[in-house]
Structures are given as C-alpha cells and as structure tokens.
C-alpha cells in the first residue's frame, strides 16, 4: 500500500500568472512521456520483472507520482486565478469550455491520456530499454518546455525534474547490467 506525505518532493514556485505555460506543462501531466505514463508503466512492469529489479521499479514509480504532483502544482498555480479571457488568450479557451480550471490528463495538443502510452512486453530487456527511452524522452520534453518558458522560478523546478530523468535513466541502465549478470555474479545451478 501507499501512504501520502503532505509535502512536495521539491519546492515549486511560479513567478508569473502565465496560463500558456500550463498548456505546455500538461504534456508532462497526461502526455505519452509524462509523469503519469512513467509511474503507471513502472508500477505495472514490476509484477513480472525478475525479482532483483522489482525494488528499483517500485521506487522509481513511487518517485514519479511525486513528480506528477509537482506538475499538477505548477498547472494549478498557473491557472488558479486566471480569468476566462486570459485562458482564451493562452490558447486554453477550448480547454476551459470542457473543464473550467480542473486538471485533466491530456497532452499539450489536447489528446486525452490513453493506456497505449504504457508498453508492457514482458521481456525484461525490452521493458527496461523502453524505460530508459522513456526517461530520455521525458528529459527532452523538459528541455523543450524550459526553452519556451521565461519563468525563472518555474524553470528551477523543471531543471530538477530534468535531472531526475537522468538519474532514473542511470539506474535503469544499471538494472540492465544486473539482468545481464555482468556484476561478477556467476550463475549457480
């Protein structure tokens, strides 16, 4: 089971009321390489992956949920007090019509979240390579959002999230090495 802790993993500050940034950030909320897809992908793969790497998948999945909460916080703060007029100008008019300011799992282009974002092949190497690729794609997405954002406080949190993708990628790469039994662990039959 899980417990909830009443804190973010990293402080999130937003300096300007800029709903257009929320429109970009929603890619990491409900997009193909977003935090929800990552959390669900790892949490789901762990049931059938070799025991040696179940702990890692559980822990990274858990951390991804805390990143999902950080992204939600950013979107919430960027849209909380924005007027319908401001949302319309930011390209969020159609979003407002459908959801008001409620958060919704969709990507930046408005496509709703789908389970097809979550690959589960059952082959441990295929799945871990998928995970490494997912981390690199999420890192790239953070780069492109930082490129589009002038909010230094927001970018500070986004740089933290980008760095976490790097560390997760590192650990998944190590998991592949463990499954290759390259760590001087000889098989005993």
């Amino acid at each position, binding site marked *: 089971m899980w*417990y909830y802790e*009443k*804190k973010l993993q990293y402080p999130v500050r937003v300096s300007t009321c800029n709903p257009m940034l929320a429109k970009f950030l929603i890619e990491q909320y409900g997009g193909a390489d977003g935090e929800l897809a990552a959390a669900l992908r790892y949490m789901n793969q762990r049931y059938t992956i070799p025991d040696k790497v179940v*702990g890692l998948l559980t*822990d*990274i999945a858990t*951390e991804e949920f805390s990143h999902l*909460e950080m992204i939600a916080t950013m979107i919430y703060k960027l849209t909380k007090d924005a007027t319908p007029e401001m949302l319309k100008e930011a390209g969020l008019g159609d979003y407002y019509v459908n959801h008001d300011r409620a958060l919704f799992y969709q990507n930046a282009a408005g496509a709703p979240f789908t389970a097809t974002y979550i690959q589960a092949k059952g082959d441990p190497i295929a799945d871990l390579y998928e995970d490494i690729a997912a981390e690199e794609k999420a890192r790239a997405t953070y780069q492109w959002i930082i490129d589009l954002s002038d909010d230094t406080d927001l970018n500070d949190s986004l740089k933290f999230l980008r760095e976490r993708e790097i560390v997760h990628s590192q650990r998944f790469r190590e998991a592949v090495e463990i499954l290759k039994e390259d760590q001087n662990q000889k098989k005993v039959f």
Partner: protein
Amino acid sequence: MTKKMPPEFYQLLEEIQAIDFVIVELNLYLDTHPTDYEAIRQFNEQTEKSMKLKIAFEQKFGPLMNFGRSYSNYPFNWIDTPWPWQV
C-alpha cells in the same frame, strides 16, 4: 479565510525536503548496489535525521502523513490547509 504560513514553515519544510531527497537518492542507488556498506550506513543515518526533523515539524504545523504514520491533535488536524500544491 486567509491563513499565512510563517517563514519557519517554509524553512523547516525545505530542510525536510533536502534530507528526504538524499534518502531517495541513496535508496535508488542501493536498489542497484545492495552491498555498499557505507551507503547503507548513510541511508540509516539520514533516515534517523529525517524522523527527528518531522517530529519537530509536526509539533508546530500538524501531521505530515495519513493512516497512522503521524499523531493527530483535537480536532483532527490532518485535514488542515495548506495542502502541498497550495503552499
């Protein structure tokens, strides 16, 4: 109703965030390096530090965790604002 959190709230919270972050990093590292004795020692040391900081924080600002991982005052103060996305 406007309730403003004092600077101390943010300071203590960030101190906890920092220690807990070190613990997350060591945890993921240990998931793939389970025999690194020094890292385990540091993990346990930081865990103890985190627990102490949280006890001090909770006495001032209320429970950090649900489902019996934190004690409650009267009335039940788990439900008090601010929630993490509001701070």
